[in-house]
């Protein structure tokens, strides 16, 4: 183990760390250096498997994976810059490497400042970094090895895995969460998903079916309609990453998306119509603003549907 990389303490954590941790740099090709944060298993580091975790983007940092998903500590909210214990950390059952990749993401860098890259170069540099990891941690070389990640790691992982399979690494398998694994399929099902979860209405759905449904050859009108639907889904204030959760961050640079919702809604349910009928009514689609108790409203105005 590289003593110089050991994390002795973490600001915001009181007392000793839950298991040994290491942070430093792994070599990619040439002058590329990728930052890693390795957390040993809290149970049996000698025998538990090793997981390489990759977040997506492309260009998003795997430290998010550590600090708000599967790591042993989560950053607390409200800016107090402290950490709390994650009782369901994956480090309870595995040794986990969080790798910031490609260069230019997080603390990773390229000495020559060239950050142009692609899927294959990213996979190649991830492989080189992984091989460097096992040089630094030969004690982990015989452990079972898995790759896991989410989102655009749906590309990162299989492209890396086909390279890993040609090495001596004790590779066993891979897991992908909410993966970007096929652009066409995801794009098509996104509209279906939006319709079946009532994010778009009948009229727009019918327009979509008419415009995009019959021909296998994509038309300009279909592409435009898909763009509009996409804009509606991702910038309307509904959290596209968790439609039943809160919208915690910003969602749009302008009010345009909110306005476009009105265009997409069924005429009988449009805000303009409802407002005339029920003075004082404000759209529940006002992003992240909950200023109306819909249930109470429905009782007051039987038959009202948002």
């Amino acid at each position, binding site marked *: 183990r590289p003593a110089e990389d050991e994390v002795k*303490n973490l*600001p915001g954590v009181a007392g000793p760390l839950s298991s040994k941790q290491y*942070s*430093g740099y792994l070599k990619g090709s040439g002058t590329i250096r990728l930052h890693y944060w390795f957390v040993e298993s809290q149970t049996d580091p000698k025998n538990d*498997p090793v*997981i390489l975790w990759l977040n997506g*983007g*492309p*260009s*998003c*940092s795997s430290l*998010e*994976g550590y*600090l708000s*998903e*599967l790591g042993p500590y989560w*950053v607390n909210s409200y800016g107090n*810059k402290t950490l709390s214990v994650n*009782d*369901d950390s*994956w480090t309870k*059952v595995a040794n986990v490497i969080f790798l910031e990749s*490609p260069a*230019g*993401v*997080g*603390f990773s860098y390229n000495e020559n400042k060239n*950050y*142009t890259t*692609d*899927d294959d170069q990213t996979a190649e540099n991830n492989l080189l970094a992984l091989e460097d990891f096992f040089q630094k941690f030969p004690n982990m070389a015989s452990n079972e090895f898995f790759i896991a990640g*989410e*989102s655009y790691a*749906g590309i990162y992982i*299989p492209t890396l895995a086909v390279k890993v399979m040609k090495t001596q690494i004790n*590779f066993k*398998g*891979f*897991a*992908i*969460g*909410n*993966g970007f*694994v*096929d*652009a*066409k399929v995801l*794009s098509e*099902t996104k509209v279906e*998903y939006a319709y079946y979860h009532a994010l778009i209405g009948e009229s727009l759905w019918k327009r979509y079916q008419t415009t995009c449904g019959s021909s296998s050859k994509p038309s300009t009108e279909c592409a435009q309609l898909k763009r509009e639907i996409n804009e509606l889904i*991702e910038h309307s*204030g*509904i*959290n596209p*990453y*968790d*439609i*039943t959760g809160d919208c915690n*961050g910003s*969602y749009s640079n302008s009010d345009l998306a909110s306005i476009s919702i009105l265009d997409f809604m069924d005429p009988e349910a449009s805000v303009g119509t409802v407002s005339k009928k029920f003075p004082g009514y404000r759209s529940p689609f006002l992003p992240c603003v909950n200023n109306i108790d819909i249930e109470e409203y429905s009782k007051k105005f039987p038959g009202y549907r948002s």
Partner: protein
Amino acid sequence: PFLPCVNNVDIEEYLNQPDVKTALHIPDFITQKWTLCNPELAAIYTNLYNTTIPLFQTLLPNYRALLYNGDADIVCNFLGDQKFVEELGQPVLGNRRAWRYRTQVAGFVKEYKQITFMTVKDSGHMVPQVTPGPALQMITNFLNNKP
């Protein structure tokens, strides 16, 4: 915004503290602020793969795979990944069934030869964040090659 509705302020504030950077052995010449994503890098990144089906077909004969989806995510929605797994054409090992976390239904799962597709109920894009308990159970079983 690069990630609509995702609040990353707390992580950024934490990681940009000098004492945290020191603890993580980040060299002083890295003066650039740590950010969750790098949109400028994303803008010059070249995507080479529209589909990963050929890669999966290379891998699956020898390696196990798990595709899981928080079912409340629309960006990489479960319908798409479910369809993707079906299109791989792996032999089906059993019917789609509910899986449980403690006593509650936590999603649905369908197993194929070498690959499992599962949903995580009412979870989002970041499954271990939204539903940490079910996520840990899921990955533990996968690592141990259990259903």
